[in-house]
C-alpha cells in the first residue's frame, strides 16, 4: 500500500509494564475523516496524543506528506487538538480562548479578524465576552472547536468531543463537525467509543482493541464485513450461530439481529424457538428467543432477533410463544479466525 498523507509506521507505546499500543500501522489520506473506535482502554486516546505530539512513542515513525515528524514537538506540528474536557481556560473569555494560540503567530488586528471569523463560524458572536462557566456544554464544545481550528491546522484531532453532551445536542454537533470538515477539508481524526458516532461521521473507521488495530474500513465495510467476532460484536449487535465445519480449521458464523428472518412453520431451513424476552425499542422490537431441539426441549441457546413494530402486530408475537426463523445465507457473516471469539463474548 502506498503511504498516505499521514503515515504511522510500527508505533508502540508502554506505560511502565502496561502496553498501550503495539505495532500500529496506518495510512490516512488528505482530507479524510477518520474515527478511532474501540472500548475504553484500547489505546485510542494514546494514539491520538502521540499524533498530537503530547506523548512520545517508544518505537515507530510518524510522517506527514513524506516528512518525518516523530520528534517534532506538539506546538510545531500545526495540529489542532480538541480535548475531551475541552480544556477551555476558565479565566479567559470566549474571544480570548479562541485567540490564545494566535498570539505568537499573527498581529493584533489579524487576530481580531480571525476571532471574528471563527465566532461567526460556530455561531457564538454574541457570547464573545462571556467566560466558559457562563456557557452551556454545547457552546463550550463549539468554543473548543473554534480554538482548535483557529490557526488553520493541517490536521484536526478530536478526543471524544461529544461524550460530555446530552443526546440531542450531540446529534446537532455531530452534524456541525461534519459541516466544518466538508467546508475546510482538514484531515480529521476523531476518537470515540460510540459506534453510532463513528458510523455516521467517518470516511473510514479504525477499530481498535487491546492496544492493536483490528480492522480499518469504511463504515459500511466494517459493519457488513467485520473481520473478527470482536468487531462484529462491538459495532452493532450480533448472534454467533456456530461453526462452519466445512472450512479448514473451522470458521465462526454470525448474523445481525435485523437479518434474522421470521418464517412460516413449514419453512425448509426454519429453526424453532420460544420468546424469552421482549424489549420495545420504538421502531422495532428486540426479541430473545431460546432455541428448541427435538421434542421442543429447550437448548439453553439464545438468538437475538429485531422485528419491525408492524410485523409484531401482524404476527401477534407474545412472551413464551413459539416462533420460527431462518438465517438467510447472504447475511451470514464468516470469520477467518476464531481466535478472539472468546474475547468478544
Amino acid at each position, binding site marked *: 500500500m502506498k503511504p498516505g498523507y499521514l503515515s504511522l509506521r510500527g508505533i508502540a507505546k508502554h506505560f511502565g509494564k502496561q502496553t498501550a499500543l503495539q505495532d500500529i500501522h496506518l495510512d490516512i489520506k488528505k482530507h479524510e475523516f477518520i474515527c478511532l473506535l474501540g472500548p475504553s482502554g484500547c489505546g485510542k486516546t494514546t494514539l491520538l*496524543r502521540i499524533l*498530537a*505530539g*503530547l506523548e*512520545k512513542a517508544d518505537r515507530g515513525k510518524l510522517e506527514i506528506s513524506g516528512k518525518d515528524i516523530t520528534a517534532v*514537538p*506538539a*506546538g*510545531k506540528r500545526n*495540529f*489542532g*487538538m480538541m*480535548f*475531551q*474536557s475541552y*480544556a477551555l*481556560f*476558565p*479565566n*479567559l473569555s470566549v474571544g480570548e480562548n479562541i485567540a*490564545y*494560540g494566535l*498570539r*505568537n*503567530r499573527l498581529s493584533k488586528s489579524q487576530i481580531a479578524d480571525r476571532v471574528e471569523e471563527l465566532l461567526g463560524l460556530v455561531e457564538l458572536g454574541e457570547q464573545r465576552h462571556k*467566560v*466558559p*462557566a457562563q*456557557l*452551556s*456544554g*454545547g457552546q*463550550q464544545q463549539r468554543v473548543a472547536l473554534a*480554538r482548535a481550528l*483557529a*490557526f488553520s491546522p493541517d490536521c484536526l484531532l478530536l478526543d471524544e468531543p461529544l461524550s*460530555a*453532551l*446530552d443526546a440531542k*445536542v450531540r446529534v446537532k454537533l455531530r452534524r456541525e463537525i461534519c459541516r466544518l470538515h466538508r467546508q475546510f477539508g482538514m484531515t480529521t481524526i476523531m476518537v470515540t467509543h460510540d459506534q453510532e458516532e463513528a458510523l455516521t461521521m467517518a470516511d473510514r473507521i479504525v477499530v481498535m482493541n487491546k492496544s492493536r488495530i483490528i480492522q480499518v474500513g469504511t463504515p459500511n465495510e466494517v459493519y457488513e464485513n467485520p473481520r473478527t467476532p470482536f468487531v462484529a460484536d462491538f459495532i452493532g449487535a450480533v448472534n454467533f450461530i456456530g461453526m462452519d465445519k466445512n472450512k479448514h480449521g473451522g470458521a465462526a458464523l454470525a448474523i445481525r439481529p435485523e437479518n434474522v428472518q421470521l418464517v412460516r412453520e413449514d419453512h425448509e431451513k426454519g429453526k424453532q424457538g420460544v420468546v424469552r424476552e421482549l424489549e420495545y425499542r420504538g421502531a422495532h422490537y428486540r426479541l430473545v428467543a431460546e432455541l428448541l431441539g427435538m421434542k421442543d426441549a429447550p437448548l439453553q441457546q439464545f438468538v437475538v432477533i429485531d422485528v419491525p413494530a408492524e410485523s409484531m402486530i401482524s404476527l401477534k408475537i407474545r412472551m413464551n410463544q413459539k416462533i420460527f426463523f431462518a438465517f438467510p445465507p447472504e447475511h451470514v457473516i464468516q470469520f477467518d479466525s476464531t481466535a478472539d471469539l472468546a474475547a468478544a463474548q
Partner: protein
Amino acid sequence: MNMNIWLKRIRPNAGSWSQNIVMLTMTAALLIAILLPLGELVMKAVTDQEGGFVGLAHFANYFSTPALVASLWNSIKVSTMTTFIAVTLGFGFAYALERSGIQGKWFFRSVALLPLFAPSMLHGLALIYLFGNQGLISTGFFGLLPELRIPLYGPVGIVFSEVLFTFPQAYLMLAVALKSADYRLYEAAESLGASKWRTFWTVTVPGTKFTLISTVFVCFVLTFTDFGAPKVVGGQYNVLATDLYKQVIGQQNMQMGAAVGVLLLIPAVVSFVVDRISQRKQSGWLSAKSTPYRIEGNRRRDALFYALCSAVSAIILGIFLVAVYGSLVKVWPYSLSISFSRYEGLFEGAGPFANSLIISLGTAIIGTLATFMLAYLIEKSRACPVVRHTSYFLSMLPLALPGLVLGLIYVFFFNNPNQPLNGLYGTVWIVILCNIVHFYSVSFLTMTSSLKKLDSEFEAASESMNVPWYQALLRVTVPLSLPTILEIFIYFFINSMVTVSAVIFLYAPDLKPASVAIVNLEDSGDIAPAAAMSTIIILTNLLVRTVIMGLSGKLRKRTEGLLLRKEG
C-alpha cells in the same frame, strides 16, 4: 547522585528544556535545604568530635545519664496528658460546630483558632499572670477572694499551655473529618433501627477513626518537640526539648545534641508515616455521591455543646485578655493603672519586631513563590518522573521534621567553614530559608490539592497551540490559583512571626526576631515586655490575615464561579 545521568535520562520525555532546567534547579535546592542537613544530623549522632565513628555511644551515654532519661520520661508524660486533653476537647468542639445546631458558631470557630496567631510562649506568660506567685488567681484577685495556688511551674503549667497550643490543630483536623460525612450512612443506620448512641459508635467514630489517629499523633509530636511552653513555665521540670537547647547552646555539646535530636525525630517520623497511611484510608470514605450531613434539632444536645464551647472559648479568651492586660499594667501587682510604656520603642527600625517583619515577609514572599513553582512543576509538568518523584518525596519530608531538629541540623550543616554555603550562616537568609523549609510541606500540600482541581489538559492544550509553558502558567494557572497563593502567603507569614523552635539556634545577634526576644525577656524576668511583644505579634497577624482575606474573598468567589462545570 550525578546530575549528568539525570539530564540524559530526561531527554526522551522532555516537555521543554527551560522547564526541565527549572525543575532540576528546584530539586537540587530541596536536596541541599532538606536532605543533606538531615544526613549531617545522623552523621553527628554516630561520630565523636574528631569525626571518628562511635556507633551508638552517644545514645548509650544518654540512657546511662539518669537526669537525661528522666527528661525523656517527662516529655512522654506531658505529651500523653496534653494529647488526651487536647484531642478530647478538640473532638467535642469540632462535633459541636459541625454536628450540632448551636448558635454563634462563627464566634466559637474564631476563638478556637486564635491561639494559632500567637507565639506559644504567650500561653505560659498568661498562666504566670494567673497562677504565678503574684498571679491573679493565686492571690485571689489580690485579696478579694481566698487564695488558690497550684504548682504552676512544672508539668501542670506545661500541660496547660500545651493544650492551648495544640487545641486549634486538633480542632481543625477533626472538623474537616466531621464535616465530610456521608449522610446516607446515617439514614441507613436510622432506617435499620439503630439508636443514636449506636450510630455514633458504628458510623461517626469509624468515619473519623483515621483522622482521630492522626490527630493524636500530631498533638503528641507538637508537644513532644515544643520548646516555648516548657521554657516559660517548665521551672525545674526538664523535658527533651529544653535539654536539647541546653546541650547545644549551653554546653556546646553538638554530638549529644544530635543524639537528642534523633530521639525527638522518632515520634515525628512515626507520626508522619501514620498520617500518610490514614490519609489514604480515610479518602475511601467519601464518594461523589455522598450527601452532606444534615443537623437535626435536639435541644439537650445543643445545650450541652453550647456549655462546652462557651467554657473552652472563655478560657482561651481569658488567657489572651490576661496577657494583654498584663502588658498594659504599670507594675504588676503593685500599681495596676494602665500604661502603654511597654509598647514604647517596640516599633523601632532595628528592633526585634522590625526584624520579625523582615523575616516573615521574606519567608512569605520567597516561600510562596518557591512552593507554587514546585507544586506546579511536580503536579503539572511532564519533566522526568524520577526527578518529580524525588521532589515530591523531599517536599513531604519536612512534615517529619520538628522545628527544633530543623534548627539543629541547619546549625550542623551551615555552621561549617568547609561548607560552600557557610556564608549564609549568621545572616537573615538562613533564618528565612529555615522558616520556608519548616512551613513548606503544609503549604505544598495545600497548593497541590488546589492545582489538582484544575483541568490537567490545560498544559497539553497550550502545548498543542505552540504556546510556551511559562505563558500558559502566567495567563491561566496563576490567575486561577491566586486565592490559594494568598492563603499560603498568610500561612508562611503568620507562622514565621510566631515560631521560635527553629530560629532560636540560627538568628544572628543583631537580627533577633520578636519571638526569640520574648523568650529572652521572660528568661530575665521581664514578663510584661514579653507580653507586650506577644500582643503586638498577635495584632500584626490578625491585621495581615484580615486585610489579605478581605482582598481575596471576592477573588475566591470569582474564581470558584469560573471553575463551575456545567453539564450537558
